[in-house]
């Protein structure tokens, strides 16, 4: 039996992802200094230190040279995040842990079969008949369409730093796995899944009234972009995917931190209870939010613009024109829903005086130096990447010159305007209300009832009656007899 040996992989891909992990850990750790009150020293220390632990584990995952160790460290980073959700909400934490465990265990099964067949499970494309294992395993991590059921619930109910890490880096580990996986049969599947994820996420996001849940659906939609880029399978597409990964990590982390700090002030995530001049009460936070919102909409000069331009270019290179249109439509939806978020979240003054239950004006931004520093770091990087878009492609060894061309600029700005106009038209329809929005996790709750039937059925045979146990013995013996007699 072979011994476990850790093999390293050092290439530009892992390095750039690792740098991203480090950066996320720095900024979120700084943010967390203010997230927990100073009185709760233990919890505060935990929230400051655990992003670093997470960063260590994810870097190990990024540098590991085979699927087994990748799975190991993937799981360890999930467990770290599980501990970060735990103080707030045990049920969500458990839900997260179980989904992530099943994901990484599928990867393990795949790796085991691969080792059995080939002798090693080096990071890289896998045989086509194992693809379903790897795709579903990594898909749970990446929240591919159909396997995304855990993401909105967990992202919205986790503590703010954890949400930022989850959306910022945890799902990106799955993306990293998908990038390593990218070869022909896999890319076809991804090409189908990517655009549909982008659209599905947007459709769900527009109708949300829970601010964090809205952002969570945006994560799904942006992951759709990345998956699409990987789905092209070309070098340009992969660099574009990595670029958008980095960009998305930065701006989505930023957005989660902003929304989280406002949530903390209001004590609720319900958009319908926000508004009333939030922008005036929290000007710095609002500014950061604006940076994030512009970046996610792909406004020129922000990181989102550059990465989306690259994705579109890579799609056009392989003449996936339909997909480009789908992505543009998704972009319109993104703008629309961010208009909704910023309007109802920061400005809206309704007729009815609505007051959040735990509105705490003491939590103003002035005392929150670390919090703002953490967000500022992310915002700075977002803008920096937007201004110098060449940096990352050059680092990855790719020359991509035409960021600020007219066509690219136009294709970025037109969806923004369209979205803005659409929002003005449909403002009333988009008012956040208490309506129920159905997604897979509601189905899952229904399914849970059916799943609990299983143990009940098994428990039925444990009647405590010795006579029935004996009957089981006889039946088992007969089955074994018949089976052995046939061979």
């Amino acid at each position, binding site marked *: *039996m072979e011994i*476990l040996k850790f093999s390293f992989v050092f290439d530009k891909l892992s390095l750039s992802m690792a740098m991203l992990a480090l950066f996320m850990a720095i900024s979120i750790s700084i943010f967390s200094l203010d997230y927990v009150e100073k009185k709760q020293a233990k919890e505060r220390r935990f929230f400051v230190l655990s992003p670093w632990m997470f960063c260590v584990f994810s870097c190990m995952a990024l540098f590991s040279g085979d699927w087994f160790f990748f799975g190991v460290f993937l799981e360890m980073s999930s467990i770290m995040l599980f501990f970060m959700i735990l103080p707030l909400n045990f049920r969500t934490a458990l839900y997260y842990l179980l989904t992530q465990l099943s994901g990484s265990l599928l990867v393990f099964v795949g790796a*085991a*079969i691969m080792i059995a067949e080939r002798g090693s499970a080096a990071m890289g494309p896998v045989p086509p008949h194992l693809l379903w294992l790897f795709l579903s395993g990594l898909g749970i991590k990446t929240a591919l369409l159909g396997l995304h059921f855990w993401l909105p619930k967990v992202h919205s109910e986790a503590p703010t730093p954890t949400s930022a890490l989850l959306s910022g880096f945890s799902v990106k580990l799955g993306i990293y796995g998908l990038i390593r996986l990218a070869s022909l049969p896999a890319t076809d599947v991804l090409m189908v899944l990517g655009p549909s994820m982008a659209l599905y996420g947007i459709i769900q996001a527009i109708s949300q009234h829970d601010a964090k849940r809205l952002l969570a659906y945006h994560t799904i939609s942006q992951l759709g972009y990345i998956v699409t880029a990987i789905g092209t399978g070309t070098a340009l597409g992969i660099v574009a995917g990595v670029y958008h990964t980095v960009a998305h990590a930065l701006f989505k982390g930023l957005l989660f931190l902003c929304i989280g700090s406002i949530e903390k002030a209001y004590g609720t995530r319900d958009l319908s209870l926000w508004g009333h001049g939030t922008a005036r009460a929290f000007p710095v936070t609002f500014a950061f939010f604006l940076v994030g919102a512009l970046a996610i909409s792909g406004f020129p000069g922000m990181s989102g613009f550059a990465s989306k331009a690259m994705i579109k270019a890579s799609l056009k290179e392989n003449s996936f024109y339909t997909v480009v249109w789908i992505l543009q439509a998704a972009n319109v939806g993104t703008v629309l829903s961010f208009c909704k978020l910023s309007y109802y979240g920061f400005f809206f003054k309704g007729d009815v005086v609505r007051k959040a239950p735990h509105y705490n004006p003491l939590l103003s931004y002035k005392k929150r130096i670390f919090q703002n520093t953490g967000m500022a770091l992310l915002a700075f990087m977002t803008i920096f990447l937007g201004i110098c878009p060449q940096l990352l492609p050059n680092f990855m060894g790719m020359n991509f010159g035409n960021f600020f061309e007219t066509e690219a600029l136009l294709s970025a700005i037109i969806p923004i305007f369209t979205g803005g106009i659409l929002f003005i038209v449909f403002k009333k329809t988009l008012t956040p209300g208490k309506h129920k929005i159905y997604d897979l996790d509601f189905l899952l709750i229904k399914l849970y009832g059916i799943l609990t039937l299983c143990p009940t059925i098994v428990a039925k045979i444990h009647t405590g009656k*010795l006579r029935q146990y*004996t009957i089981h*013995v006889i039946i088992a013996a007969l089955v074994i007899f018949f089976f*052995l007699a046939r061979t």
Partner: protein
Amino acid sequence: MISLLTVLIPLTWAFLIPLIHIFRKTWLKRAILLFGIAVFFVTISAAISGWKQSALSFLGGWPAELGIVLIVDKLSAAFLFLSAIGGGAAFLASYGRLKEGPWRYYVIFFLLQASMNGVLITGDIFNLYVFYEVFSLAAYLLVAFTISWQAIEAGLKYLVLGTIGAFFILLGIAYIFMATGSLNMAVLSLVLPHIPNEALTVIAASLLIGLFIKIGAFPVHFWLPDAHSSAQTAVSALLSGVVVKVSIYTLLRLSLLLFLETKPAVFTVITVVGTLSVLGGHLMALRQEDIKRLLAYSTVAQIGYVLIGVGTGMAAGISAAFFHAINHMFMKVGLFIAAGHIAEDMKTRNIYDLRGLYHHRRWFVIVFSLLTAAIVGIHPLGGFMSKWYLMLAATKAGNVIPALALAFGTVISAFYYMRVLSFFYSSGDPPPRQTYPYWNLAIAGACALCCVFLGIVPLVPSLWKLVSDIGLNAVDTAEYISTMLSK
């Protein structure tokens, strides 16, 4: 020579204790402790000597065909090691609880140890049955030791089902004798291929169903949760940790020697039963509110893991099965001792009544959590490593569904163990009673440390070679036969 002493010394102690009780009552306390330590060291030294070179002892000086031979090869030595450690831990736990108290308990305990060692080293199939019966009777009695109604009921059910199993085994041996006329396992391994297929079917099926009952595999496991949960703390630990493993050794030895070439379908049956055990055990554990019963059902599932390893019929699978067996021994001994102590201390076994235990029994809960993490399969710990190797072996043998069941079972086990832990860590105050915790805490803590240590075994080549040698040695039946028939 020393292999013989592993049986004789505990047996002699068992015969001596009544005499000491009659003549020198005051010596009893020290004598029992001394005896326990002596048994531990003799068993360990027999394991070491058998590991270096297969140790034979011909009883009465007769050659293998005529008399009975005791043989310690690497497989036996490994299981002897396991029985020595587990038995030692259980002995210490019961000594700490009962002191010299009921001396008959120790008589039965030593008889159990003697017969377990006898089962592990005997080379004769009828002698195996005899030792097996001593060992089963001692186990029934240890279960019923507390004479509470649960204990007696569990003991009776164990006895009736176990006796049915024993008769199936005896029937199989009778058929073997009718077909071949000899009983030495090495000789049987040579002559069994020449007997008619129908007879072989009956032999295989009878032995299998009998052993499955004794092991407690899923469709016929009904006595196991009753017995393991109703027994006294140390006895539960012994039953779950060692007794079940000895039965697994028997299955392993018989199936490899008798059916590896003549009836490979036996291994399919073992795999199927293992898979069923994994699923059934975990599903039943999900429903339990009694902490000891939960652990007992978890044992059913872990037995399933080991059976999946045995069912591969390959060196890698058997090594992994042993590795998991020894891991499970440490984990379950620790868990049962910790849980049993808690249950006795708090006068309740219901997990709902154990809320907030963390605030009163901090170290117990920490040790319990560590062991839980090991049994679920969290990374650096032993449980994960053994599960990974089991998965590897199962996929290598082409059993993908058992590997998936293994993964699925891990997720379920994470669920129910986390549920238990959540009760322990939640706030609430059980009555802070405190009864001599240190003894049990030390044993459970040592088990937890061993789990941590076993986690690094696959990373160290020299240690891992020890484990992988077991499988290679077990599969090499030709060497066993030639060693046995050398005289």
